[in-house]
């Protein structure tokens, strides 16, 4: 069975390491914060100016002055810090953040990513995504394998305007975990009950399949 959004978030949480500072994008990436392995300390950075994000507030305790990059009300943990936007992107551009997780509309086999614009139809803007992907050493994309029209989002080359080039290292979808290296997607793990054939059929870009493909736990 293919993973749901929570399953994707849980799988990405397995990539976390103790002591890391992590930036989570809007959507599925935000859910990763709920599945930090026990015994591990990970600090979440939000580019609007906070380190040490905590859970959402209890009803009635929301503070309009305290939000995440998705404009949701949040809380902070003891030891949190607030800072301005230039300092926030100094953390990102200066590679002080160890992991970036974000969503995408398309990813190419050489690691290009597109997620900010559909010409003539939708223009939301890139927000902090271009700064994040241009500088982060470790970028994981969390997304569905196909778009709503059923077309693969893992492509030989992106068709939409790019957010960044040669930057994505790993993709986690509802079907599989794939690494990107040497101009191809490398299948690492498949979701329980999902066949290698299905992944192959739904991946338009070059796909390298090893002899043994582990199951996502």
């Amino acid at each position: 069975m293919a993973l749901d959004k929570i399953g994707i978030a849980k799988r990405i949480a397995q990539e976390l390491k103790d002591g890391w500072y992590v930036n989570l994008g809007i959507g599925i990436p935000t859910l990763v914060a709920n599945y930090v392995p026990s015994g591990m300390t990970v600090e979440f950075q939000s580019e609007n100016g906070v380190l040490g994000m905590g859970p959402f507030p209890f009803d009635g305790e929301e503070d309009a002055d305290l939000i995440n990059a998705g404009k949701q009300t949040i809380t902070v943990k003891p030891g949190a810090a607030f800072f301005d936007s230039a300092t926030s992107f100094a953390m990102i551009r200066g590679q002080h953040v160890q992991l970036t997780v974000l969503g995408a509309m398309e990813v190419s086999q050489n690691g290009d990513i597109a997620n900010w614009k559909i010409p003539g139809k939708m223009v939301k803007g890139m927000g902090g995504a271009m700064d994040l992907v241009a500088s982060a050493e470790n970028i994981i994309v969390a997304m569905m394998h196909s778009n709503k029209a059923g077309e693969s989002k893992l492509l030989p080359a992106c068709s939409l305007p790019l957010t960044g080039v040669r930057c994505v290292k790993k993709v986690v979808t509802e079907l599989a975990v794939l690494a990107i290296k040497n101009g191809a997607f490398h299948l690492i793990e498949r979701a329980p009950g999902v066949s290698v054939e299905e992944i192959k059929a739904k991946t338009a870009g070059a796909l390298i399949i090893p002899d043994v493909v582990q199951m996502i736990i």
Partner: protein
Amino acid sequence: MNKVVKNVSDALVGIQDGMTIMLGGFGLCGIPENAIKELVKKGTKNLTCISNNAGVDDYGLGLLLQSRQIKKMISSYVGENDEFERQMLSGELEVDLIPQGSLAERCRAGGAGIPAFFTPAGFGTEVAEGKEMRVFNGKPHILERALTADFAIVKAWKGDTEGNLVYKATAMNFNPMMAMAGKITIAEVEELVPAGSLDPNFIHTPGIFVQRIFQGDVFEKRIEQRTVRPR
């Protein structure tokens, strides 16, 4: 020199048609809401607004879009505003979308006397079109120029009569850099206090960057995405 003005109307004296204005805030958090409402009332037209976002349809900068007072927007993310998207796609509104970190640094650079800088953000994308490219440490970077404005309008939690400002939580965001980059910077504060009331160790924006300060009448502080967890 007295920086304190008695109300929002006096604070905005001198803002004219066609000017470039920076406005602090991230989403609806930390926006100078009293000044925005006053700009609508004032009817100033053909404005170029530099702001990370464009508000929502009926609040924040969305109000100035509804009244067609904005000619051009310089922003990084405009996703929550249908009227914005409509005006942009139809070509009525000129829009310059730039990466958020580059926007923040361009404002900081403008206030800090740095005319331009190289950043890796946007290389290989349409943001890089027409911009100088150089390789540093084996990595391509693009040249981004500083931004300044005729007026910067920022919002702070507390401010004193010297113009020193303290922001609260994530309502800080773009306000400190924009305060630096305005030829004239107007600070709208929730609480205006006498000089000496704020601890000099904890000032976010030193008063040198602020020319006018006033206490806002009403702070609605609308929440864009109220998100809570069960008790």
